């Protein structure tokens, strides 16, 4: 039963309650937000994903774990790579996958969000992967589904994108080793970014040495330092000596309130180029959740350069999503 408490965080966003993501005996039930998850859970996701990476190289890229389970990708907001990697991940685990884009189906006929979910649940769906432009939708649905139905948040508004953060953590660990030694800079539109929020929670939970956010004042949430990060408005200071540079997409669709004087000026001050990257450690890696705005937040030279791990991030997204789905759907009758 739903008994969680709603808390408002410094961004004015509702924080997922501690309890709803776990069953009574501590098993992962939903995956809605990094916030509220235990360090051991995040570590187990990383370890499990590591095991799944090898299957991508095998002749038969399928495991039988989710045979007979139905996964519905319910994407109220557009996505290509996230939806595709969720679909591939579910199919590699032998689940049946249905992709729905409800903006073009029943919701446009007036059906409510929970009606849509109830209808699909009546078709014996085991797991919903949900993306929505409004913060809190995945949690709202999680609070209303029966015990045997599970929810994964694939991005809700400006709130959270936890599988993206976990594939980023996996990629960091793969290239840079243990978190306690690492300085990480997150650069760009922090204010609108659900990715940044999830990354900060994940890096904090996994014990990163230092987390920095770098952005113009207009794109930095007030009191962000209370999340345990250092904020910088100067790119070269923010990147000084860091091991990992995590770029964010400039969300042009949310830029109608004059956050920036001009795109060119933004690129001049905050764009990641070979020159600005020189401030980071010599072996620093460059990450980006995609899609990339080339020449706006990152130059092509860097995005396609030797320190970019943008494509490995995409590949790792499959293993991470397999891990989360397997952990959620396994051991149900005990949970």
């Amino acid at each position, binding site marked *: 039963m739903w008994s969680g408490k709603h808390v408002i965080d410094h961004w004015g966003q509702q924080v997922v309650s501690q309890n709803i993501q776990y069953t009574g005996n501590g*098993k992962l039930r939903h995956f809605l937000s990094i916030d509220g998850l235990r360090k051991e859970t995040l570590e*187990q996701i990383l*370890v*499990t994903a*590591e*095991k799944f990476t*090898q299957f991508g190289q*095998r*002749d*038969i890229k*399928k*495991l*039988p*774990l989710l045979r007979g389970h139905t996964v519905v990708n319910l994407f109220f907001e557009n996505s290509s790579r996230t939806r595709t990697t969720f679909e591939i991940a579910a199919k590699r685990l032998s689940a049946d996958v249905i992709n729905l884009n409800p903006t073009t189906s029943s919701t446009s006929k007036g059906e409510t969000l929970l009606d849509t979910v109830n209808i699909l649940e009546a078709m014996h769906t085991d797991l919903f992967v949900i993306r929505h432009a409004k913060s809190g939708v995945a949690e709202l649905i999680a609070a209303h589904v029966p015990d045997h139905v599970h929810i994964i948040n694939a991005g809700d508004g400006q709130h959270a994108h936890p599988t993206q953060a976990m594939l980023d953590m996996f990629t960091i660990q793969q290239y840079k080793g243990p978190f306690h030694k690492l300085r990480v800079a997150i650069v760009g539109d922090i204010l609108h970014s659900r990715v940044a929020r999830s990354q900060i929670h994940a890096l904090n939970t996994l014990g990163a040495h230092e987390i920095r956010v770098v952005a113009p004042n207009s794109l930095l949430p007030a009191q962000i330092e209370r999340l345990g990060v250092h904020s910088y408005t100067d790119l070269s200071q923010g990147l000084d000596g860091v091991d990992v540079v995590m770029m964010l997409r400039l969300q042009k669709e949310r830029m109608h309130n004059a956050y920036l004087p001009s795109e060119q000026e933004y690129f001049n001050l905050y764009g990641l180029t070979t020159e600005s990257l020189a401030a980071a450690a010599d072996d620093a890696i460059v990450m980006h959740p995609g899609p990339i705005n080339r020449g706006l937040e990152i130059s092509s030279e860097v995005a396609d350069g030797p320190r970019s791990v943008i494509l490995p991030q995409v590949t790792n997204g499959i293993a991470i999503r397999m891990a989360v789905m*397997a*952990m959620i*759907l*396994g*051991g*149900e*009758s*005990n*949970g």
Partner: protein
Amino acid sequence: MTKKIDVEVSTLLDKLVTDITPLLATNPIIIGIHTGGSWLADILHDRLGITEPCGSLDISFYRDDFSRIGLNPQVKASHLPMDISNRHILLVDDVLQTGRTIRAAMNEIFDYGRPASIRLCVLVERKGHELPIQADYCGMSLELRPDQQVKLCGPENMSLIIGDSKS
């Protein structure tokens, strides 16, 4: 309560090496099931003088009780370095009881390719078969109560331990 079985594992291995030796004519690949089976496979591999590296399987992703008990957090990566298609395989495990582990292992092997044959070698066979799976090579048979467990400890100074129920 646990007690050590008064049988030397090395004696059982001597018997297995003798029994398996005729199979060498088929140039088999040895694959051990994690964890105990892998220890035994390594030893058999050396004693039989097989040159191709040993494979190891962690069948956690193939278990038929996944939906009941979930993923084993200690799952290890499987490692079958060689092409197994049309090859003769010697599958090694420590204890054969229900046969479910062997079924899962065979399912996984077939996802790597289609072997010419699979032979099963176990250190201990005990009653409680739930599937039509028998060992081709067996170190010893044990009669145990259903609530008793037998476990191979190792990998150094391997010994067989009997314990009362699951703890």
